[in-house]
């Protein structure tokens, strides 16, 4: 066990250092490069061009939200200077842009950079430079690893916790299920699959009858659905991105396969998946959610949703309100503003990480009721709860309690 004790000793030493450095700094103003009396410089990297350019809207929403904050007087009197660069979802370009942000623009930290491969490419660099890589926009489970990567933190629930929640539900309600899984053959699909297997535990081998994978380059996944039906599975775990999810829902109805259908949160959008697939075909589908869906009628009179829609109309009128990316951008930007408020006048990189790791029951208005953001020095997964929902009529109906599933990296 010497390695473990060594790590523990290093971690406690680091914590002790943070504690001493902040206790002396509480009274006076303290800055690292990127922060001054009037400005906080924040870097961001988004795929505005290239294969994942649809996600670029998240960065544009964030820019709009920070403009709103600046118009309202900034954070503790400091304006946000949001510098967002394009990496076209290409890891070498991400490295170049991250280095430009840190070494040339001298930002205080990098916020919400998007995608698993781009963030993997800069993780080591950011941690060796001790510059926060805060609230990365990817659901991979590996971002919650404060011991090895104390400068990297995720935001959204990680993929593994979501399928663990499905597994919990299946073990409780459908103990004799025969499960067929369809997943995308990449890190995202495999992460989800791992969560499911971990959640089912020893019963995984006997319950899962078929693990079927597809490539994003395939035009249609119809043949995979037919194959899954042929196994006689009565539970279908659908780990697909929006286009394929809509195809799967449609094909299920066409060939008359009626399993209990679990659809991953990635594709739970009413506007971009369920509606195109047909409401009739989607009745009874189960999914999990943590954000309110703008296309869902039940939030029409919700105060939080109204605040979001007002923001969109005033600061980002050209943005698509029904695109889930705008809700995510808004929610994550609000979380960051809270962290910066908590930092007070101590805008050092260490304090930004410290405050990000001490959020207690924080809520942004776009989270589902009952879901709260909690972090600690050993828990770098801000949102780790989800609620199950079932599709009925033309909207999702939440059911059961908010379920917490912690999965470490």
């Amino acid at each position, binding site marked *: 066990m010497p390695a473990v004790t060594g790590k523990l000793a290093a971690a406690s030493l680091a914590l002790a250092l943070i504690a001493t450095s902040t206790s002396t700094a509480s009274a006076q103003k303290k800055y690292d490069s990127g922060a001054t009396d009037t400005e906080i410089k924040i870097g961001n990297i988004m795929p*505005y061009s*290239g294969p994942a350019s649809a996600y670029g809207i998240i960065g544009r929403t964030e820019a709009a939200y920070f403009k709103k904050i600046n118009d309202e007087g900034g954070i503790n009197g400091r304006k946000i200077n949001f510098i967002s660069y394009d990496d076209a979802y290409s*890891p070498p370009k991400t*490295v*170049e842009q991250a280095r430009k942000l840190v070494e040339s623009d001298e930002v205080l930290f990098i916020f919400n950079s998007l995608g698993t*491969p781009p963030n*993997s*490419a800069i993780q080591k660099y950011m941690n060796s430079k001790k510059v926060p890589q805060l609230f990365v926009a990817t659901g991979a489970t590996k971002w919650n690893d404060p011991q090895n990567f104390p400068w990297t933190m995720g935001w959204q629930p990680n993929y593994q916790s979501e399928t663990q929640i499905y597994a919990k539900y299946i073990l409780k309600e459908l103990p004799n299920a025969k499960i067929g899984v369809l997943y995308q053959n*990449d890190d995202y699909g*495999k992460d989800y699959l791992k969560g499911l297997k971990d959640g089912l535990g020893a019963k995984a081998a006997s319950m899962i009858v078929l693990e079927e994978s597809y490539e994003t380059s395939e035009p249609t996944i119809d043949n995979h659905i037919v194959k899954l039906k042929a196994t006689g599975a009565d539970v279908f775990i659908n780990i697909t991105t929006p286009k394929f999810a809509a195809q799967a829902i449609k094909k299920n109805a066409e060939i008359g396969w009626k399993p209990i259908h679990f659809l991953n949160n990635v594709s739970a959008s009413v506007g971009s998946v369920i509606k195109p697939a047909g409401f009739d075909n989607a009745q009874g589908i189960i999914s999990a959610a943590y954000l309110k869906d703008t296309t869902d009628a039940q939030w029409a009179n919700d105060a939080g949703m109204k605040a979001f829609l007002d923001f969109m109309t005033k600061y980002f009128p050209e943005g698509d309100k029904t695109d889930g990316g705008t809700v995510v951008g808004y929610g994550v930007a609000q979380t960051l503003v809270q962290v910066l408020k908590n930092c007070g006048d101590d805008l050092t990189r260490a304090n930004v990480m410290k405050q990000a790791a001490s959020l207690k029951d924080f809520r942004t208005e776009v989270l589902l009721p009952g879901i709260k953001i909690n972090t600690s020095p050993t828990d770098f997964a801000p949102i780790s709860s989800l609620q199950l929902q079932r599709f009925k009529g033309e909207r999702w109906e939440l059911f059961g309690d908010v379920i917490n599933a912690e999965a470490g990296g």
Partner: protein
Amino acid sequence: MSAAEEAIAEGHEAVEAVPKRAMTLGTGTSLVVLAALLVVPMFVKNFIIFQMTMLLIYGLAVLALNILTGGSGQFSLGQSAFYAVGAYTSAVLMEHANINYALTIPVSAVICFGFGYLFGKPALRLSGIYLALATFALATAMPQLLKLNFLEHWTGGVQGLVVTKPDAPFGLPMSQDMWLYYFTLAVTVAIYIFSVNLLRSRSGRAFMAIRDNEIAASSMGVNVALYKTLAFGVSAGITGVAGSLGAIAVQFVAPDSYTITLAISLFLGMVVGGVGWLPGSFVGAAFIIFVPNMAESISKGLSGAVFGVLLFLVIYLVPHGARQVAIFGQQLVGKLRKN
């Protein structure tokens, strides 16, 4: 009219004939450029040094394509595949077998040479656009091959591999970035001299004979099949070295880094730099690295369109790329001297 000018005036074919003396810079100019490359890093930030390193690396990859297309007249849209093989060879050797980074580079060169040579065999039956398509297929297939399950233990699958950046040896007082830059510069200069000599040698003349007229070349006794595959091998080998250096500089390899976009960028760099003009490779590399950044600073939402317009302007105004600008400059200097 100089020979180079004639070449431009007559250049109607896809790859026009470039006489071998027009392929390089004069000795004096070369030394000035080299001195600048040696001195500049001492006065700039690490980030700029990193960008200069990337410029040399992409420059090498474009140079490799230039030997293939400008030298032997064969097209390739598959350079990203060779680049990926080189990058992964270094990454896997460094991270799994703990081999010194400098030693992985010759290994990459050999593996990629073999890979390119073998790929050149079936490619013999194809020419022009058909060859371009076949290599295009190679570039599209590569990222998916790297994700294959049975390779995942080595390649890290979609997650890629993180590469450790080497420190300066012998306790030299320089940053990792600066050391890597000088290391890359040394490799680049060596390969550049090798390439210039290759094109001036008997093999180089054979490449150019094939480029200019295959039938004439074979009737003169040039082994067309051998030299065509050899050109592929050399080009792939140099690209592999560039890939290795790229992996070490970026400290990360992942399938998404080596998509067809990279191959097209390299192709674009060659055209902008001037097909067949070796120093132009580095001008082309500068174009593919810095112009997208410029386009982004002009308009974030329309960066692709701005890039397109800039590229269009270059192709329209100086269709022979940097070479044309260089020749124009040379003439200007010549005139000034006469006056």
